[in-house]
């Protein structure tokens, strides 16, 4: 009997010890937020970013301009935005290298090179196509956010984000002189045709109107914010607008040729181009105060 009582006592002690093992295996941090009292820089806030923009990869033009982006952050990591940018276009170095090989005047009928249909310097410039206005509507995803030290002295919050959306690009001829006629080497003035001729069309004398106007675009981008305080930050961004265009503005495709095989400028001469822009902006968050997580 005494032995049995001893066994039951030891068993009871063992049962008491068992929950202690379970407690020790459980992490008290489980289920708790990863960061307490985190400043939610984006959640339910409006972001206004005036930006300066520079194109990086247009073949013939360098776009320089500015605009702005307005974004509402539904959560700290998901947002919806819209942007508008206007860019002026300058001639890229490639324009100079091509122009030095082009004749000053268009080859006249008696000129041995008239069959080549090589544009003159001015014809070449007048046909170059570039975007002047860029509009985008997009969603943003901010998967990475944290803080960093600058020179081990300044501490700032930052985030990396990606954006994807759709937009429009307004294309025009930014280097065009507006000439309506060109002199040839024979001294004749050759008039510019606003549309293609049905026969014996000369693309150098056809206005590049088929390549201008509004084009739908796909929009992709990545960027970073570096916040100086809870409502002002620096924004660096790379945006890529993908749309159909013909940057050279002259004949590309033979599928649209006339019946007499003379080339024509038409939508068939456009192809998908990538226009990468670098943006530098100042981000202002509204309202100025950021929420603090629990």
């Amino acid at each position, binding site marked *: 009997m005494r032995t049995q009582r001893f066994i039951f006592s030891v068993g009871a002690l*063992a049962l008491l010890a068992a929950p202690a093992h379970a407690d*020790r295996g459980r992490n008290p941090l489980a289920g708790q937020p990863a960061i307490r009292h985190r400043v939610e820089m984006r959640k339910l806030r409006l972001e206004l970013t005036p930006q300066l923009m520079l194109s990086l*990869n247009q073949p013939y033009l360098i776009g320089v301009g500015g605009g702005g982006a307005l974004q509402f952050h539904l959560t700290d990591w998901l947002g919806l935005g819209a942007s508008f940018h206007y860019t002026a276009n300058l001639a890229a170095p*490639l324009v100079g290298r091509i122009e030095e090989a082009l004749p000053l005047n268009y080859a006249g009928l008696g000129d041995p090179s008239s069959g080549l249909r090589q544009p003159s310097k001015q014809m070449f410039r007048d046909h170059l196509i570039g975007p002047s206005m860029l509009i985008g509507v997009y969603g943003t995803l901010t998967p990475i956010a*944290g803080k960093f*030290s600058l020179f081990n002295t300044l501490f700032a919050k930052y985030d990396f984000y990606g954006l994807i959306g759709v937009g429009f690009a307004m294309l025009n001829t930014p280097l065009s002189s507006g000439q309506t006629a060109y002199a040839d080497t024979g001294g004749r003035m050759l008039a510019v045709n606003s549309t293609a001729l049905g026969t014996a069309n000369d693309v150098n004398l056809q206005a590049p109107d088929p390549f201008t106007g509004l084009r739908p675009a796909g929009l992709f981008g990545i960027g970073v914010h570096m916040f100086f305080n809870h409502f002002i930050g620096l924004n660096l961004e790379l945006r890529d607008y993908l749309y159909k265009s013909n940057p050279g503005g002259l*004949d*590309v495709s033979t599928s649209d040729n006339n019946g007499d095989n003379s080339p024509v400028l038409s939508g068939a001469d456009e192809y998908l181009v990538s226009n990468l822009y670098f943006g530098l902006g100042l981000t202002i968050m509204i309202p100025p105060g950021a929420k603090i997580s629990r």
Partner: protein
Amino acid sequence: MRRLAIGLCVWTATALTLSGTDRLAYAREQQPAASPEAPADKPADPPAEAPAASPPGESATQEVAGAKTPTEGVQIKSRWDDIAVLPRRYSLKAKRVELMPMYHFTLNNPLIRHHGFGGQLNYFLSEALWLGIEGTGYLSQQFSGSDGTYFLTGAQDKVLPAVNKLIFSALLDFGYVPAYGKFALFNRAIVHWEGYVNLGVGAFMSEVIPVKRSDPAFQNISAMVKVGVGSRLFLTKFMTLNAFLSLYGYPDTFEPVANVSYNRDTNGACRDYYTGKQAGTPEFEAAYASCRKANGNTTLSLDVVFGLGLSFFLPPKFEYKGPR
């Protein structure tokens, strides 16, 4: 048999009970710091602190020998007690060598893309400053496809612009790390990173891709400068994934495409180069190449490149000097 079974039960129960006795110690850890016994149960003290001067005598020696080290104290505690309030820098780089194989490509040249394969060897003077050398060999991809600018320029404007391909570049680099940060990856792993700027000066070699395939190619060797920004993402304490954006500037000499007078005509613009040389001989061709090079157009080329690299820090191990 019955007695054996009872004995086994007794021993098992006793073992379980005894193994749970440190529950009391665990409970003490949960007590507030104001408890007079709390200091004895605080997380490990800084291990690097030197002990106070030992009192002379045998008793002191025994006391020291019997004392628990801070490490032993840590081992018996639960793992979350070892979390430092201010974690140390993830990896130290001072006086270590960084070996980085890398690949980069040009973003902004509409006629040709240079794919650069090379490496950097950097020595960190401190956590933020480094000196290094880099060498790159290039493979070229001319945009001569049906929607490539090189092809389209020829088709639209009846002109083929002069274009050069890079052969190699070698630079002496200087770098500085102004920014250091970290972020949580999927709210699980903490990833450390740093941002850097660097400057480089060195030399490059390029080669003309002749517009007319029958024309000779010539090579240029000249100075090159580089300005770049980049980031290192620490994968381990000795390995980082690097991404960088650099601007390479160099004066490149292109063949005189526009001026057709520089040809093989012995009475043409290159006639002085042909003196005493027989047409069709290697010497004549070399003279022709010299003429074209001397009359080429030298312009400043600016290549914006994006690249990726994998850095290995040597030696792979290091020691923290300061206390935790």
